[in-house]
C-alpha cells in the first residue's frame, strides 16, 4: 500500500479539471458560464434591441433616469438576496418599505429633524426584519407563512398609523437626495452602488457570507458544524429589513410623500431580480451583482417598452415573454 504522505494529490489524467482559472475561450464555450451571467446577457441584449429600435433609449439623460428609477429595486433585491440565500423568502419586503416611508413621513411631520425621521424609519424596518427572523427561527414556522403574516400585519399597521392618508414630506435634504447628482450618477444611484459593494463584500469576503450560504445550503449540516444557523437567518432578515428602510428613504425622496399603499410589483420584481440574477430559491447559492443587474434589466424593460410606445395592454405580455426568455439563458445552470 502506498505511503499516505508521499502521494501528492496529482489530479489524475482523466477526471481532472485545472485548478488554475480556466482560459477565457474555455469559459465562453461553457454553457454554465452563460448561465451564471444570464442577467448580464439579458441586460446587454435588451440594451442593444432597445437602442436600435429607439435611439433615445441610449441617450445619456435616459440612461441616467433609468439608473435612478432602478435604484430602489436594486437595494430591495439585495435585501431579498440575503434572505433567499438562506432558502427563505421575504414577502413582507414591500410592506416594510411602505411602513418605513410612513414612519419617516409621520416623524418628519411631527417636527423632528429629517435625519431622525430617516433613522427611525430604518430602525423600524430593521426591527421588522429582526422580528421576521425571530419568529421563523424560534417558532420554527415556514418563512413564507411568517412573512405573509407580517405582510398583512404591517399593511394594517401602516393604515392605522397613517390613517390611510399620504403624508407630504417636503424636506430639502430628501429633495437633494432625489435630484442631486455626483459625477455621472444621481445620489440614489450612488446609494445603490454602495449597497452593492458592501453586500458583495459581506457575502464573499466575510465569515458571515459563508455561513449564510451554508445555512441556506444544508441547514442540518451547517448546524452540525457549529454554525449558529438561527442567528444567521435572523441576521439575513434584519439585513433585508435594513435594505427596506433604505429603499423607503429613497422612495420618499423620489415621490416626495409617504403613501400608505403597498407596491406589490416591487415585491414580485425583487424576487424576480434575485432569481434572474442566478440565485437559487432553494438557498445555498447567491451573488449580489446578479440580482442588481436583474433589477436593472427589469427596470430597463419597462423603460424601453414605454419609449417604444408599446400599449399598456401589450406591455405585460412583452415583460412576461422577455423574463422567460432571459431565464432560458439560465437553462444550463447546474
Amino acid at each position: 500500500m502506498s505511503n499516505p504522505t508521499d502521494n501528492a494529490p496529482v489530479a489524475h489524467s482523466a477526471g481532472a479539471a485545472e485548478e488554475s482559472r480556466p482560459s477565457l475561450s474555455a469559459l465562453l464555450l461553457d454553457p454554465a458560464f452563460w448561465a451564471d451571467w444570464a442577467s448580464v446577457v439579458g441586460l446587454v441584449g435588451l440594451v442593444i434591441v432597445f437602442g436600435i429600435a429607439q435611439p433615445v433609449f441610449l441617450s445619456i439623460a435616459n440612461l441616467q433616469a433609468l439608473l435612478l428609477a432602478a435604484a430602489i429595486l436594486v437595494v430591495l433585491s439585495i435585501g431579498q438576496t440575503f434572505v433567499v440565500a438562506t432558502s427563505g423568502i421575504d414577502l413582507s419586503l414591500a410592506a416594510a418599505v411602505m411602513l418605513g416611508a410612513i414612519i419617516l413621513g409621520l416623524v418628519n411631520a411631527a417636527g423632528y429633524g429629517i435625519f431622525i425621521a430617516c433613522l427611525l424609519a430604518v430602525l423600524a424596518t430593521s426591527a421588522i426584519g429582526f422580528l421576521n427572523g425571530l419568529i421563523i427561527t424560534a417558532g420554527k414556522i415556514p418563512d413564507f407563512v411568517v412573512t405573509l403574516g407580517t405582510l398583512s400585519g404591517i399593511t394594517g399597521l401602516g393604515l392605522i398609523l397613517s390613517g390611510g392618508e399620504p403624508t407630504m414630506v417636503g424636506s430639502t435634504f430628501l429633495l437633494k437626495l432625489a435630484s442631486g447628482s455626483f459625477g455621472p450618477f444621481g445620489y440614489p444611484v450612488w446609494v445603490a452602488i454602495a449597497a452593492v459593494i458592501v453586500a458583495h463584500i459581506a457575502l464573499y469576503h466575510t465569515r458571515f457570507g459563508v455561513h449564510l450560504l451554508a445555512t441556506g445550503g444544508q441547514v442540518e449540516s451547517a448546524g452540525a458544524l457549529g454554525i449558529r444557523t438561527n442567528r444567521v437567518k435572523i441576521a439575513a432578515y434584519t439585513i433585508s429589513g435594513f435594505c427596506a428602510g433604505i429603499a423607503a428613504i429613497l422612495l420618499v425622496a423620489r415621490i416626495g410623500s409617504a403613501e400608505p399603499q403597498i407596491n406589490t410589483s416591487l415585491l414580485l420584481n425583487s424576487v424576480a431580480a434575485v432569481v434572474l440574477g442566478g440565485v437559487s430559491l432553494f438557498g445555498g447559492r447567491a451573488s449580489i451583482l446578479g440580482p442588481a443587474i436583474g433589477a436593472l434589466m427589469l427596470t430597463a424593460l419597462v423603460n424601453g417598452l414605454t419609449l417604444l410606445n408599446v400599449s399598456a395592454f401589450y406591455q405585460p405580455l412583452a415583460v412576461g415573454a422577455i423574463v422567460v426568455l432571459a431565464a432560458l439563458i439560465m437553462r444550463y445552470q447546474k
Partner: protein
Amino acid sequence: MSALSSDAIIACDGLSKHFGGVRAFTDVAFQARRGEVTAVIGDNGAGKSTLIRCLVGVHVPDAGSIVFDGREHPFSNPDGARKAGIETVHQNLALIDELTVAQNLFLNRELVRRIGPFAFLDRKAMKREARSMLSRLSINVPSINQRVRRLSGGQRQAISICRAVGSGAKLVVMDEPTAALGVQETANVEALIRRLREQSVSVILVSHNFDQVRRLSDQIWVMRAGKMAATVRASETTGNELVALVTGAA
C-alpha cells in the same frame, strides 16, 4: 459499567435519547481514555451515531450527564464542542453541497485577515492550506474550487475526514470514516488515525469493520439495540468474540 475515571477525555453516564416514539438508546455509560483510540461497534440502528451526536452537541440528550476534559455539561451545541476541541466526521459527512471543497474544509473555522475592526476572509491562505491538507492525506479531487455536490462518494468522505483532522483537536470523532473509501484511501486514513494517537490526540471510531477496529483501537465498546452491551480491550478480544457481542449470541 464503570464510574467516570479521571483519565477519560470524554465520558457519559445514564445517557438516553429518543425521537418521538423511537428510542435511539437508553441509559448508556461510555468513556474514551485520553490518548487512546476508542471504538464503538454495533449493528445497524443500534444507536451508535445518535450517541456520537449527543456527545458532540448536535443532539441534546433526554437524560444523563456528559463530562469532557474534566468539565461537566461542557457545551450545549456543536459550536461549543468544536471550540472545546472536538472535531467530528459525521456519518452523513455534514458537507455543504453548494460550497467548494476549500470552503467546506474551513467551514466555521475560516481564516481571516483583520483590517481595523473588520475581518475579511483570507481566501488565498485557505486555498493554500486546503491544498496542503488534502495532499497530506493524498486525496484526489478534481479541483479545490469545485462544489462538493458532484464529487464521488469517496471524495466526499475524504474531505469530511480531512476537515476533522486538520485543525489540531483534542478529540477526533469518526463515524464510519472509511465506509466509502478505496483500499488506498482506507490505508491512508488508518495511518492517519495511528498518527493522531502518536500525537496523543484521542480518537473515537465507529466502524463495522472488525478487523479495522482490532487493528486500530485500544478499547472497544459494543452497542446492541439501544444499550451499551459490553466493553473490552482490543488486545484481549477476537473477531469472533466481537461478532458474538454485537449479535448478542454471547
